[in-house]
């Protein structure tokens, strides 16, 4: 029965840039929707009955970036590098230790629960684990209707009707309103989470590894859904991923994180075509290449050692313990994230040379 199949986008819809709006990378001076500056989050480590602080996890350490209206910023990095913490700071589920978060020009860095409540309509989050992100004791109707209840909004036609519309929007059967999360598959559950995040018509959606818990065969469907919904609803995304393959086709710009720092930030084309940071190169070498001829050309860079502990990150460049290009200066001086070319920011003392334009194709 057709209504029992999830709406699967067959054949990728041709993406067009809406008139009057240019490609984001071309107009960097447009006012950002989100501006993050010098954001820091340290989780204190306490000991003993008196909870004396003996150290801190440097989960996010001085990161700055902008997100422009309508774009998708991809954020990648190995597990534990602070991506989720960054997402939770921006959605203000966590209190930043330092730095500022501005949304539409308004400083939300230290707003309390009450002050954040109206902002929550505009900033929403899609969570990583579709099994833990839906309360098993609530029906789908309750889950997707919760945003209206919590924000005191009655949509036109009532909550139930709107919830059913949202279920349809994400490709689920609206009649399944009374079902419980355990009656759905992982991909369907993630769609429920997406419906909940979109209920209040947010402007910015932070998606924290939205497909990493899903079966590979389902991942593309959910990514495509997010992509379609962006066009339909004019959303701005920050999509977090732990490798460069998932977000390749949906990101306008990509930020690469390593141990709480952004090490490279640029548009998709130059990141995939001409990565400048050794860590980005290593990540990129792990992405499967469909074309066998190109696969043969490219050497796989295997990083030595483990990610160092964020409790006492390495001095100088945090990547120097694993970098094959590391020199003395890397151990002592921290490289600053600087724009080396229009739009291409990299934090490295010995960045990769700019490759020939012929190679720089996504």
């Amino acid at each position, binding site marked *: 029965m057709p*209504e*029992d*199949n*999830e709406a*699967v*986008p*067959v*054949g*990728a*819809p041709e*993406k067009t840039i809406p008139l009057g709006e240019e490609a984001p990378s071309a107009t960097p001076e447009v006012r950002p929707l989100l501006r993050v500056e010098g954001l820091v989050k340290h989780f204190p480590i306490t000991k003993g*009955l008196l909870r004396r602080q003996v150290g801190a996890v440097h989960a996010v350490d001085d990161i700055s970036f902008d997100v422009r209206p309508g774009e998708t910023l991809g954020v990648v990095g190995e597990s534990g590098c602070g991506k989720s913490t960054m997402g939770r700071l921006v*959605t203000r*589920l966590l209190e930043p230790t330092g730095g500022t978060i501005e949304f539409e020009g308004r400083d939300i860095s230290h707003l309390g*629960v009450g002050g*954040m409540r109206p902002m*929550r309509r505009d*900033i929403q*989050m899609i969570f990583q*684990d579709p099994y*833990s*992100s839906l*309360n*098993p*004791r*609530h*029906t*789908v109707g309750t889950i997707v209707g*919760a*945003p209206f209840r*919590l*924000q005191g909004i009655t949509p036109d036609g009532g909550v139930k009707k709107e919830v059913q519309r949202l279920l349809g929007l994400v490709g689920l*059967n609206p*009649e*399944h*309103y*009374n*079902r*419980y999360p*355990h*009656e*759905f*598959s992982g991909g*369907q559950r993630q769609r429920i*989470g997406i419906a909940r995040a979109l209920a209040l018509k947010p402007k910015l959606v932070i998606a924290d590894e939205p497909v990493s818990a899903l079966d590979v065969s*389902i*991942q*593309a*469907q959910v990514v*495509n859904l997010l*992509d379609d919904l*962006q*066009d339909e609803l004019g959303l701005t*995304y920050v999509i977090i991923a732990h490798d460069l393959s998932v977000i*390749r*086709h949906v*990101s*306008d710009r990509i930020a690469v994180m390593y141990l709480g720092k952004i090490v490279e930030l640029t548009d998709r084309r130059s990141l995939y075509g001409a990565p400048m940071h050794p860590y980005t190169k290593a990540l990129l070498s792990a992405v499967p290449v*469909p074309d066998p001829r190109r696969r043969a050309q490219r050497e796989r860079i295997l990083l030595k050692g483990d990610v160092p502990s964020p409790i006492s990150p390495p001095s100088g460049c945090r990547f120097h313990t694993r970098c094959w290009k590391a020199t003395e200066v890397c151990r002592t001086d921290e490289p600053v994230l600087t724009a080396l070319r229009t739009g291409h920011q990299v934090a490295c003392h010995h960045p990769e040379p700019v490759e020939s334009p012929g190679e720089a194709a*996504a």
Partner: protein
Amino acid sequence: MTAPLPETSATGTATVVADAEIPVPGTTIEGRSPWRIAWTRLKRDKLALAGGIVVLLLVLVAIFAPLIVDLFGHPPNEYHEDQIDPLFGTPKGSWGGINGDFLFGVEPVNGRDVFSRVVYGARVSLLVAFLSAVVAVLIGTVLGIIAGYFGGWVDTVVSRVMDALLAFPQLLFIIALISVVPNELWGLTGSGVRMAVLIAVIGFFGWPYVGRIVRGQTLSLREREYVEAARSLGAGRTYILFRELLPNLVAPITVYATLMIPTNVLTEAALSFLGAGVKPPTSSWGQMLSKAVNTYEGDPMFMVIPGLAIFVTVLAFNLFGDGVRDALDPKGSR
């Protein structure tokens, strides 16, 4: 997002792996709630059902004790010396004086109707056991949730208090306490006071067991992403505690409460046996047992009957409680 989509979404590929696991239409659209599923499982567990039926009967007996005694027995404090052998003080006839008129026989010496006293004893036993479980669940749930959700020094304090109470010699304490409790308290008199004190004290010493379980569950539940999802929608603490966490705690609390009742039945019986229970002439099973100790040689039936009452009650609640636990938590993670 400006590029066409990847290879994976090319025509056809996506449909092959279509994520369509929703049951076939025609089946009911009504969701199967976790409670409905548990009920279905419980219904298949014959032993638990039998336990449940006995529990239900016992509760009915306790509620309708006056009516039942009216129909099948004699007033519980009426003496029937005509049923007693004047020489030995034991009931006339065999089996403790069981006959059509006195279904469970009579008490030695004074000839009171054992049936009526057992029926009224069920009242005391179940009321004390049930209400003390309620007290334990209320205190344990509130403090357990607070400790688990807020953590920090609150958790440290609550956890230490629970440890201390669990190490406390509660039976000795209750006996000592009962001996100093006045005859009138909280507007109650006599056995009413004793029952209120029993309920309060058994409940008070029971809450750490509930508290530990609730705290542990809350600790793990508060890390679930649905709690963060609620916060990201603007939910405050009250909403998270009552709407997100509590519904997930009801199952473990129910299980623990059902399994706590038989323990409380035994505690009440032990206290009554030791003279720290309800006051005569109000009857209770433990008290009957302690009286029977003096006459068990001449009249063993008077000991067997309250003993059986306790045994059947505890067994029925345990069978039912185990069934509820298995139904609510089939994986056996406790």
